């Protein structure tokens, strides 16, 4: 019993999410087994969550430092639009994009993400604009550039080979997008727990002043964090491009706040200094399961998902509140 209590105390958010996941899976098994537990359904879910899942992981890093990144969607859309243009150019007269060019598309995303993320990082670490305002302004700026360059219309006339591949499944089983997500998740896991970056990030988020006095390169750390978030947002944009087979300035608007919701639900404190990847990944999965499950009930409007997300978030905050109080009393 003691051991369970210790596990609970150290991993509260994760245990909570696991419980919700298990309860929901059981509920779906009892009510919509045939419609939910199909190979197709799981494959679809696994290909849908990566686009916001990847962005969420980037936002997580920013929030551990006590900041935030509201520019995910702007970076994502800009990337998709530039990718569409780039693909059209590369395909040339034939209008067919050969697979050899695929890495270049990823490279483009990384470059765009790095530049945008560096802008965020510069404004926050050098000019000292509060992260919420800096990333908000950059988001407007980038979205504005998207609108100005497309006139607000969707771009769908580009060679579809790349997006078809990304939207496809390897061996007919594993969605490519899922693999991209897993690879990116492993990268962040490695950064956070196998290098000194993770420890430095948590301490930077606890107190930037003490971090500076301790000799940490606070400017460099912040730049690195926001650049990573930018790159992840850009890659998320590629995933979106594959999903919609088109690029538009206003796709994915809901992801701006949704990523924050996921990150907080995953146990990252909005004040910084705390947070683990496992919590965020679980939160991404739980949200997808909830959304997909609700879609299986015809009489229940899919809009209810929004309500449930918000409700779960507030509920989680309340649970945190009560558990903090009882922990303080026990001291």
């Amino acid at each position: 019993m003691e051991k369970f209590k210790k596990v609970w105390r150290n991993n509260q958010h994760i245990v909570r999410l696991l419980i919700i996941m298990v309860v929901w899976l059981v509920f779906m098994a009892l009510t919509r087994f045939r419609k939910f537990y199909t190979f197709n359904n799981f494959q679809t879910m696994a290909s849908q969550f990566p686009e916001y899942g990847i962005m969420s992981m980037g936002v997580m890093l920013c929030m551990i430092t006590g900041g935030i990144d509201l520019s995910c969607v702007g970076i994502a859309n800009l990337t998709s639009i530039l990718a569409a243009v780039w693909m059209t150019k590369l395909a040339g007269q034939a209008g067919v994009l050969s697979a050899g060019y695929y890495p270049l598309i990823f490279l483009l995303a990384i470059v765009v993400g790095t530049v945008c993320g560096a802008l965020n990082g510069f404004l926050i670490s050098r000019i000292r604009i509060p992260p919420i305002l800096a990333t908000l302004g950059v988001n407007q700026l980038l979205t504005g550039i998207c609108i100005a360059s497309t006139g607000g219309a969707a771009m769908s006339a580009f060679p579809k080979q790349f997006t078809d591949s990304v939207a496809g499944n390897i061996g007919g089983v594993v969605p490519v997008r899922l693999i991209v997500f897993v690879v990116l998740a492993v990268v962040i896991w490695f950064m956070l727990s196998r290098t000194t970056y993770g420890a430095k990030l948590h301490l930077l988020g606890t107190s930037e002043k003490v971090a500076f006095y301790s000799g940490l390169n606070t400017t460099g750390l912040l730049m690195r964090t926001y650049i990573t978030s930018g790159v992840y947002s850009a890659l998320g944009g590629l995933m979106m491009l594959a999903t919609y087979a088109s690029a538009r300035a206003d796709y994915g608007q809901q992801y701006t706040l949704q990523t924050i919701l996921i990150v907080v639900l995953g146990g990252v404190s909005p004040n910084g200094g705390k947070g683990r990847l496992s919590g965020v990944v679980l939160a991404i999965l739980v949200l997808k399961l909830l959304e997909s499950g609700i879609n299986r009930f015809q009489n229940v409007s899919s809009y209810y998902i929004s309500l449930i997300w918000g409700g779960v978030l507030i509920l989680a905050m309340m649970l945190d509140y009560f558990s903090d109080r009882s922990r303080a009393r026990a001291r």
Partner: protein
Amino acid sequence: MAQALLKAVDINKSFAGVHALKNVSLEIMPGEIHCLAGENGCGKSTLIKIISGVYERDSGTIEFNGKQLGKINPIDAITNGIQVIYQDFSVFPNLTVMENLALNTELAAKRRVVSRKRMRRIAEEAVAKINFQVDLDQLVGNLSVAEKQMVAISRALMFNAKLIIMDEPTTALTKKEVQALFQIILKLKEQGIAILFVSHKLDEVFEISERFTIFRSGELVVTGRTADLNEQKFTYYMTGREFQNKPFTAEKVTEAPILSVRDLGLEGHFADISFDLRGGEILGITGLLDSGRSELALTLFGVRPATSGQILRSGKEVSIRSPRDAIRSKIGFVPEDRLSEGLFLPQSIADNIVISEIDKLRTAHRTFDEKKRQAEIDKWVKELAIATPNPDNACATLSGGNQQRVVLAKWLACNPDVLILNGPTVGVDIGSKHDIHAFLQGLARDAGMGIILISDDLPEVIGNCSRLLVLKDGRVTFESSTQDLKEPTILSHMM
């Protein structure tokens, strides 16, 4: 025998199993200046919160002004004439002096609508009581620390206070401001107001109080007249131990200086500072709060890079424009405010110890070497005798003295040649203070480290340094060895 103003008898208080106050008593006469002293955690803050109604006592009686006090809340305490001024003064920096002074009164009178005229009248009345000249329309955030304290005192006087409790009031004041505060306290005494002065600084106890009470570990140790007190008795009452103060003499000093400073200046704070530091010696730097001594420390460590002059390490000029540069030059820095500059309180002791040397804890493949990290943590916890059951506990769980040991561990882990300490024993209990001094002396003597000790605690500086530099208004006014050096000489060059 005159009747006591405050008579607290056999007060007990426990928090979740911790017995914070064990049958303590405190008696204060009307108009008396009484000092309550004790180390961190001795229970003095708890008793104050009980007297002022923030906490409820478990048992015991409190009689104030002839009246038995039952269960009271903070507003009751104020109505009875008890006022507390906490260390942060509880002021609103974003509101004007006038509003800060008048808010309590207005709210107590259950006012809803603001009347500037009424507020001004209340404010003017308040500052007149201690003859405090201030611009009532100024934002409190723009005032100096001493002025903010005056606002807090003026506010405290507005409710017919009979007893004013001041919690460590001189912490952030310059010597001149401390004198001004003492004058105010004497004036309040003239008006028949009793002052309970919480402090652990012996010289203050001597200078201002008539009677004193000392707590240790939640118990009353002694109460008596200040005239009967001396330094040895004071230390013994506070810690229960007797200390031998061994003054430091530098042995085995390196021939060449390991750190040299030439005409160093920071615009607006200090200029033309030059000195040498040799390995094995402890150099003291002292001065008033505004002498530039703290800024000099920050410049040497790169937090506020110099605007003129040079810093040389072992004869070679180095550029120190950030703490990282300083650490790379093997300079460590124990800052003045360990809570907001030295430690990540909510993080573990372990994380705090390794953070500055963290880049050295990597394997050949540049990944984090867990084994090396654990070895370092075990080593330093042991060497600095950090009292904790588990190094993964948060730093916030440690006492002040132990927290300072963690800060020391962090810097020693970086293997510095030069260690700069700014006010290292401020807010540290006397026992830990002596331990830290012994430790520093050992570092200089046995490890050959060059240490710069910046402090305004003259006995600390005289007893632990081999040489001393005095700063005044940004320049060096005096330099000498500490042998046979007396406090008045130093003071004359400081003020």
